[in-house]
């Protein structure tokens, strides 16, 4: 019967508490109104922030991002050396790191090199007994090109491990700090394999993180408790609860009433009220993202730069920001967000000028406008809170210059596939950065290599001048020189106008006043070690 119920109930079998009762009166419990149920507790096979948040409290990585920044800092690895022209990484592991325990498993040894080996090989080696357990879909491991990049991984001794790469790769350390590289316990895995229930390690997780999992009820809540033997010292909070609340307005109502302390992804419409609430503080940080409308430059009439420019001038960007993003977005003029180095602030955005747009259209041979489609994704994305509403505004603006736009949408997976195949004339899309490098935007989204059908260049735009600039910038290591090239590329981008750049979404976290020490993560993670309640 227990098995049938999904509610994972892990005994408080750690040294501290013998009882299952809620913590003693006065225990510090922080409630986070999270936005959904995690898929499971194995971050390596998931792609949603919701699942990463659920796992982030439990697991440790070799290295991690310093809270609130993109800097890589030691975690389970105390130190490391990079040798052989950036091709080998030797990590010295922290000693005396304890694992959590649960009903089914009591650890007998501390964290060590075997656990790292297990966690990496499980995603890498197809013949590994755990490769297919839970799922063989190790998305990020593949997306970060690790199967190609890794040559070997060897255990030097119990507390030293060495990665050898096929080529130098500067972002490798950042990769290891990402959620998919969480470290699981080899001893737990062996025990569960022997018991015939290998998938348990992903359902009733055991990690080295600051909190251990106490209870999970799908669509209702996740309950964590501070791990007293956490190597960094016990968390200031005693209990941490994720109250799963999918509706943004409901999350806000709960925060207002004090039913939760921190909430992610507020409804843009509610932010004004949040700022006025004396019990709430709204933390904010510009996000690493861009939302845009891509013109298919390989299709008529958008192969004509005058038409693209006219479109840019016909759409009222300010109205879109005011009505849809409200205070959760800033108008975008460049394809990269202002928080990324090499952002060219000197560039002037196309003005909103319907008269000039009409004139330009006439010059391009469309005095009476034309008909086009206008794709809007069916789902909310981090860079675009409501694509359909934006499409409605654009449609109305375009009608004023004689362009008849028909709004189209598909189911999300289908939408992305068709858009990347170039089936649209104009379509909304966007991007959230992985590592904060301009290349991750300019080359990935606008380079010629991704303009082929199926590629990520949604404008299907291949401009020789632009492409030369960004490809060259990829090969140089001098940051000043790279900045110069990227700035030139942004000028070309603006002249050629393959996109109507809409906005960069701002991350907003309404937090109650009694919460101290919460920091916004540039990667939209929510972690609670270091947070306390007044």
């Amino acid at each position, binding site marked *: 019967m227990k*098995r*049938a*119920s*999904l*509610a994972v*109930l892990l005994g408080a079998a750690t040294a501290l508490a013998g009882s*299952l*009762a*809620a913590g003693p009166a006065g225990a510090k*419990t922080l*409630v986070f109104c999270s936005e959904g*149920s995690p*898929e*499971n507790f194995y971050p390596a*096979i998931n*792609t949603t922030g919701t699942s990463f948040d659920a796992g982030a409290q439990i697991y440790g990585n070799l290295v991690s991002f310093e809270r609130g920044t993109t800097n890589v800092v030691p975690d389970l690895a105390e130190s490391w050396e990079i040798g052989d022209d950036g091709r080998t990484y030797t990590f010295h592991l922290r000693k005396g790191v304890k694992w959590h325990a649960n009903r089914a498993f009591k650890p007998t040894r501390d964290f060590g090199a075997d656990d790292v080996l297990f966690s990496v090989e499980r995603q890498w080696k197809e013949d590994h007994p755990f490769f*297919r357990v*839970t*799922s*063989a*879909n190790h*998305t990020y491991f*593949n*997306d970060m090109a690790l199967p190609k990049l890794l040559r070997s991984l060897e255990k030097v001794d119990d507390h030293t491990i060495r990665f050898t790469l096929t080529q130098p790769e500067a972002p490798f350390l950042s990769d290891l700090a990402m959620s998919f590289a969480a470290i699981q316990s080899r001893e737990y895995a062996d025990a569960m394999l022997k018991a015939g229930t290998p*998938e348990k390690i*992903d*359902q009733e997780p055991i990690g080295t993180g600051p909190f251990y999992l*106490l*209870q999970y*009820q*799908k*669509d*209702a*809540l996740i*309950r964590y408790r501070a791990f007293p033997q956490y190597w960094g010292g016990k968390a200031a909070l005693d209990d941490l*609860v994720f*109250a*799963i609340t*999918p*509706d943004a307005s*409901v999350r806000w*109502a*709960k925060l207002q*009433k004090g*039913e*939760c302390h921190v909430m992610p992804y507020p409804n843009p419409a509610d932010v004004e009220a949040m700022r006025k609430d004396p019990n709430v503080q709204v933390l904010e940080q510009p996000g690493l993202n861009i939302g845009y409308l891509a013109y298919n430059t390989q299709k008529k009439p958008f192969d004509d730069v005058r038409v693209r420019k006219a479109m840019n001038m016909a759409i009222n960007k300010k109205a879109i920001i005011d009505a849809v993003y409200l205070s959760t977005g800033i108008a975008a003029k460049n394809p990269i967000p202002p928080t990324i180095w090499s952002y060219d602030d000197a560039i002037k955005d196309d003005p909103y000028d319907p008269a000039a747009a009409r004139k330009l259209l006439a010059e391009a041979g469309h005095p009476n406008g034309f008909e086009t489609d206008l794709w809007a994704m069916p789902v909310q*994305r981090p860079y675009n809170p409501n694509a359909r509403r934006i499409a409605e505004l654009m449609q109305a603006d375009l009608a004023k210059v004689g362009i008849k736009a028909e709004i189209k949408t*598909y*189911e*999300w*997976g*289908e939408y*992305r*596939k068709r858009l*990347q195949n170039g089936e649209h004339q104009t379509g909304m*899309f*966007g*991007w959230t950065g992985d590592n904060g490098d301009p290349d991750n935007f300019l080359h990935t989204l606008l380079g010629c290599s991704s303009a082929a059908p*199926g590629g*990520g260049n949604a404008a299907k735009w291949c401009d020789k001048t632009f492409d030369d600039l960004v490809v060259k910038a990829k090969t140089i290591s001098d940051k000043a020189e790279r900045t110069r090239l990227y700035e030139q590329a942004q000028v070309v981008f603006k002249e050629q106008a393959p996109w109507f750049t809409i906005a960069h979404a701002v991350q907003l976290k309404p937090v109650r006043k009694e919460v101290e020490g919460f920091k916004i993560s540039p990667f939209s993670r929510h972690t609670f070690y270091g947070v306390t309640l007044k």
Partner: protein
Amino acid sequence: MLRFLLTRAALVIPTFLGITLVAFFLIRLVPGDPIETMAGERGIDPARHAALRTAYGFDRPVLVQYAIYLERLAHGDLGRSISTQEPVAGEFASLFPATVELGVCAILFALALGLPAGILAAVRRNSIFDHGVMGLSLTGYSMPIFWWGLLLILLFSVKLGWTPVSGRIDVQYFIEPVTGFLLIDSLLADEAGAFGSAVAHLVLPAIVLGTVPLAVIARMTRSAMLEVLGEDYIRTARAKGLPAFRVVALHALRNALIPVVTVIGLQVGVLFTGAILTETIFSWPGIGKWLIEAIGRRDYPVLQGGILLIGAVVMGVNLAVDLTYGLVNPRIRHTR
């Protein structure tokens, strides 16, 4: 008698098989692909996509997939969710009690108000009260409950602050799921205030879900009572000088209840429809919300399993109602 039972039960099997067909093939017709849907902006490279399709068995002919599905079904295996990798049956089992709890409370609410209202309306036929009940019940029957729910949240949770906004219980209570029904579990857990909290969370959703059944029950009760009150034996009882209350309560009500109970039993399917909307509005962790999300994610196994299990539940309840009705009312055995 036995023959009646057997024929009724036998009808269930082809319907159930039909549902497996519908569940399986309808869902295959839904465009989109669970693997594509899971990928973000980056998409997924074709080679890995193909490998994953093979891993999930989506590359085989549909008929073969259906045969495999049936075979596993015969062993009680509904497969695993593609997005969570959990067994579908397990997810259903953990979420179903929430839906049942909501549905049962909604029906209780509807009965508690609908029966007395219907009876009184019948007894005081054509009075202002009668017209009021009929008018209100028709309004309830016409209610778009997704809107009704929003209004009630706005009024009672946000403006007045009387009820919690969403969820099943306050997070401060750590309730171990024993039965899955929080009203029972919170009593078992012996934590002060837990039961009250569970009730407070249940009130609004139950009212919203109970609105349409309330209207139906009030109207059914009224008309059934009117019919019974017109029968000879009631008139005789009245003529004998029995007090009006006794006549209504003992004689009329008992007979009027049969059709009412039948109607309630046959409303299970309708109740599920309401539950889908109610759960969506109140973030109630039940089956309705689970299925809606599964459609969004193209999670075939969850959809198939969910539709199948819900179909089975509805069929089971209908069958039970049919059988009891047949037992209570022998005429029915011969008419159909």
